């Protein structure tokens, strides 16, 4: 902090001397007696490194600093997870029956055996792949439509009055409530599950995009317009990136709801998929498969939202320096 402030002041002072010279990169008619751009550039050689931060400290210190900052967090996280598995193990091993009954619940060991077993067969993998495909299709559709429609609704009053009432009427209906209608609506079971997933993801993405667009700073729009940006360029270069942080919030929430909707749909109407697998295990009284299904669903959900966060970070590198927001 301190160092960068000092650097800034320094920069301002140096710049004065430089700006005395011609600041135009193009051919302005130069009255005699004024410096030409090229001369100025030659006259004021300044290594660009002059204002760069000081060289980093030796690796040992950096490692220590890193450890001091992050290690406590990792240790606590590990304790938390180990504690959970331990509690599960004890409760199931001693068949805890204290209003809630652990009598039929498999132990962690039994579930691990199941993992080894299913990794031999292809059936389990098929379930996972099918669920992922449904998520991908439903979510991609929701992303494209939600962001596209959200940009239009957020930007244009007409679009808002046209689409919003209808969308607001549909919004309170949870995706799961669509299951029966969806089965009747679509010719194919697969399509109807994708549709349910889509419904789940669509509204969070849409609403966040709309509010993201509306929150774009008006001065940036003005700046864009007086730099010559037409409406389409404004949309692409100003409004979309301006709304991007909230769009990604919408995507993350949408991904969560998509999984909820998918699992419910698979349990009710599916023939394949990890939700179906879990429900089938219950019907067939193979208890360790239920828990395996649950854990798999959790991990897949984690994977998907992690992926979104990763894409968000890569797509919005400027946020690393933003002073907005509470948590760093």
């Amino acid at each position, binding site marked *: 902090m301190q160092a960068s402030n000092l650097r*800034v002041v320094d920069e301002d002072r140096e710049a004065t001397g430089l700006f005395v010279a011609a600041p135009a990169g193009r051919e302005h008619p130069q009255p005699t007696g004024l410096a030409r*751009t090229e001369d100025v550039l030659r006259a004021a050689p300044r290594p660009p490194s002059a204002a760069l931060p000081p060289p980093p400290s030796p690796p040992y210190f950096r490692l220590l600093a890193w450890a001091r900052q992050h290690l406590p967090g990792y240790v606590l996280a590990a304790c938390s997870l180990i504690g959970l598995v331990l509690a599960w193990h004890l409760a199931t091993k001693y068949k805890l029956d204290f209003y809630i009954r652990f009598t039929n619940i498999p132990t962690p060991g039994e579930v691990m055996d199941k993992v080894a077993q299913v990794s031999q067969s292809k059936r389990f993998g098929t379930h996972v792949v099918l669920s992922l495909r449904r998520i991908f299709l439903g979510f991609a559709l929701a992303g494209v439509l939600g962001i596209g429609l959200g940009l239009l609704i957020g930007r244009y009053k007409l679009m808002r009055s046209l689409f919003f009432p209808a969308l607001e009427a549909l919004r309170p209906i949870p995706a799961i409530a669509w299951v029966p209608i969806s089965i009747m609506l679509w010719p194919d079971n697969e399509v109807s599950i994708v549709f349910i997933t889509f419904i789940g993801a669509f509204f969070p993405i849409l609403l966040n995009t709309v509010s993201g667009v509306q929150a774009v700073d008006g001065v940036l729009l003005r700046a864009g317009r007086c730099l010559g940006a037409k409406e389409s360029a404004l949309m692409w270069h100003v409004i979309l990136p301006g709304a991007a942080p909230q769009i990604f919030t919408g995507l993350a929430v949408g991904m969560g709801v998509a999984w909820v909707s998918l699992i419910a749909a698979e349990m009710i109407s599916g023939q394949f998929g990890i939700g179906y697998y879990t429900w089938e295990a219950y019907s067939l009284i193979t208890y360790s498969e239920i828990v395996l299904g649950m854990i798999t669903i959790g991990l897949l959900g984690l994977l998907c939202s992690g992926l979104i966060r990763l894409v968000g970070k890569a797509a919005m590198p*400027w946020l690393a320096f933003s002073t907005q927001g509470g948590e760093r």
Partner: protein
Amino acid sequence: MSDAPKAGRGHIAIRDLTVRYTQHGSSIDAVSNVSLDVQPGEFVSIIGPSGCGKSTLLNIVAGFLKPSDGKVLLDGAPIKGPGADRGVVFQQYSLFPWMSVRKNVEFGLKMQGVSANARTSAARTLLGLAGLLAFENHYPDQLSGGMKQRVGIVRALATSPQVMLMDEPFGALDSQTRVVMQEILTNMWQQLRLSVMFITHDIEEAVFLSDRVYVMTARPGRIKAEIPIPLPRPRTPDMTSSPTFLALVRQLKSLIREESLAAMGGELGARGLEGFDRSLAGEGMQAVL
């Protein structure tokens, strides 16, 4: 378009301009019957009490607002909307946070369809001259306030506008940085000879930078006075202690003071205060009785 000779271009003419804001049915005149000129290559400042319509005036010339009455011409043609022929520097920071410093500067050229290579080299030249080349790949959030505003100026210059419109561009800066920025600006203008319409609260700033200063009245804003600044060019910081400079500042201060008092008068008139006191006294009496 940009090949046309600069001389004789960039003339802003405002004729009998009135701007009326309508809000919930009632309407107020922010600017009333203003006529003024910025000659090609001239540096003109506009000062006036807060709320007198300075930003409104600038937004009209920038093309963000339409006149309710009167005409605004740029080189004889009415202003239709915002465009790259008028560079605007805003009071708030207005760099795109998602673009690097260089991409920000390139933006206007990109909108004109200039090729990526030409854009980059133009932007780097300008940034080099502004002493910001080392920061070309930084994001705006990594810069200090003064640097951001300098990038803002460079960005507005990149499309070679004929006029620059600046709305209190240094208002958010501390006084030292401000002085440095004024020097940068006057040197830059000396080289480019653009027409500049500069809005400020700061009387010293207006005198130091300008060829002419317009003083506006309290709302509805009219032109109260037009003061030529006969200080020689190039301007240097030591001029700020010259007798001419100080006399001009004093003259402008008294003009502004009258208007600021007039602006306050509406809300804090002596009679209003008296009434307030009396009613309080009355209440006090009642409580005692």
